[in-house]
């Protein structure tokens, strides 16, 4: 993975119980440390953004990504993980 070590997990969709618990469990099992977390619920619409450290993962990034996507499908939410450089590139000079 080279020098890339941070990623952003986002969860978008309608609020329900246990979202954070389920996402955190996957991250824990994959050896991922949560650095920062922010969450808002507006009119029942759930937005969560997590900054995570992926420098010592268990398994590959794509396995983690697939697992989070699958959880999203199960819960009827959009869950994804993206390496943080895309956001840094876009919003920082």
């Amino acid at each position: 993975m080279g020098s890339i070590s941070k990623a952003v997990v986002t969860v978008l969709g309608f609020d329900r119980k246990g979202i954070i618990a389920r996402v955190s469990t996957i991250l824990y099992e994959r050896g991922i440390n949560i650095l920062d977390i922010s969450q808002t619920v507006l009119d029942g619409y759930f937005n969560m953004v997590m900054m995570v450290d992926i420098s010592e993962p268990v398994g590959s990034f794509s396995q983690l990504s697939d697992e989070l996507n699958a959880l999203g499908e199960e819960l009827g939410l959009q869950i994804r993980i993206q390496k943080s450089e895309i956001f840094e590139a876009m919003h920082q000079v």
Partner: protein
Amino acid sequence: MINTGEILETLRMIDREKLDVRTITMGISLLDCVCDDERRLASRIFHRIATRAEHLVQVGEEIERDFGVPIVNKRISVTPVALIAGAVRDPLPIARALDRAARETGVNFIGGYSALVQKGMTEADRRLINSLPQALSETDFLCGSVNVATTRAGIDMDAVKLLGESIVALAEKTGEQGGLGCAKLVVFANAVEDNPFMAGAFHGPGEGDCAINVGVSGPGTVKRALEKVKGEPFDVVAETVKRTAFRVTRIGQLVAREAARRLNAPFGIVDLSLAPTPTVGDSVAHILEEMGLEKCGTHGSTAALALLNDAVKKGGVMASSHVGGLSGAFIPLSEDIGMIEAAKAGALTLDKLEAMTCVCSVGLDMIAVPGDTPPSTISAILADEAAIGVVNNKTTAVRIIPVPGKKVGDVVEFGGLLGHAPVIPVHPFSSEAFIARGGRIPAPMHSLRN
């Protein structure tokens, strides 16, 4: 530290505004494959490409997944084939080898069945141009281009005449698919050597062994940004476009660097183009309409496009370490839903499109005209467009399809990214005697410019 708002904004741009990286194009030099045995030449070319680009598609998909941004196309461009076919009699085996290499590597297009003939044609150039109808009709992935003019050399009218005939023959050979073969052939003036976009991509003779060139996109993000500044003066419009283009290009730069690193190939350029697709919400025409025009093509369209094209460059240029390719706004008729609607409504004509090409990135692109258009008229359209490029020191191009059996008002369906196009009229008056002259139109003055 990036904040939540910025992260959600990026996601919105990708999900709703169709922000994507349009293409990662690997340029591969074939100069050292040269040999005078047809079969060995074809086999060397195939192996060179299949080896160099073996992981291109896989790496593209990995980057897509890592950053969560779609990379629509993975493509290959090669040295203009006429340059490596000088010692063999027939360029067609090379066309077939390129097509096989594209299939093997899984890319969706391979460009470079090309010749550079702005000053004159070698025997190999002539053979390649004559083989275009056969080469582009029997292959699936191959794209060709011919540079017929430059600002320094003028316009090669012999080549222009030949190409009018080749285009009509190619349309007829692919008549059952609406003349689709012509969508894979571009006639350039001032062609660039590092263009990542098809069908006009080739790996120029001034390039190194290999280069990764990336083309960005994002008409939807620009349109959306302009929706927030309704009624504001043009100063605000230009600033808004610049800001958006900057962000879009930063993604292109990130993807290009990452692709170059993972493929162990030098990073070439990022092409800052606004490339539309036929999908709703991904139209350059709709950006012009957002600026206050009822339909793209009406009075004011050239000015609107000039502003857009310039602002895209100004915004993008600081976001990338190397900018190149065509870099500007594309106005392909069949690939832009707003252009299609405007042409159907009669707002957008061939003449207005020609005027708009004076201020945008390329030229008359994906234009369907009646199937009975004479070759000399097609040649004359090529010459007009080349003249605009030559005199204004810019790249221009023509990708025109005389659709067999179709007349003005009919619609032709090309499918996928190529979209569909209404057949628009050409002038009925003849250019036959003009094109029959042949020879060269001299290069223009570079001083006393007015």
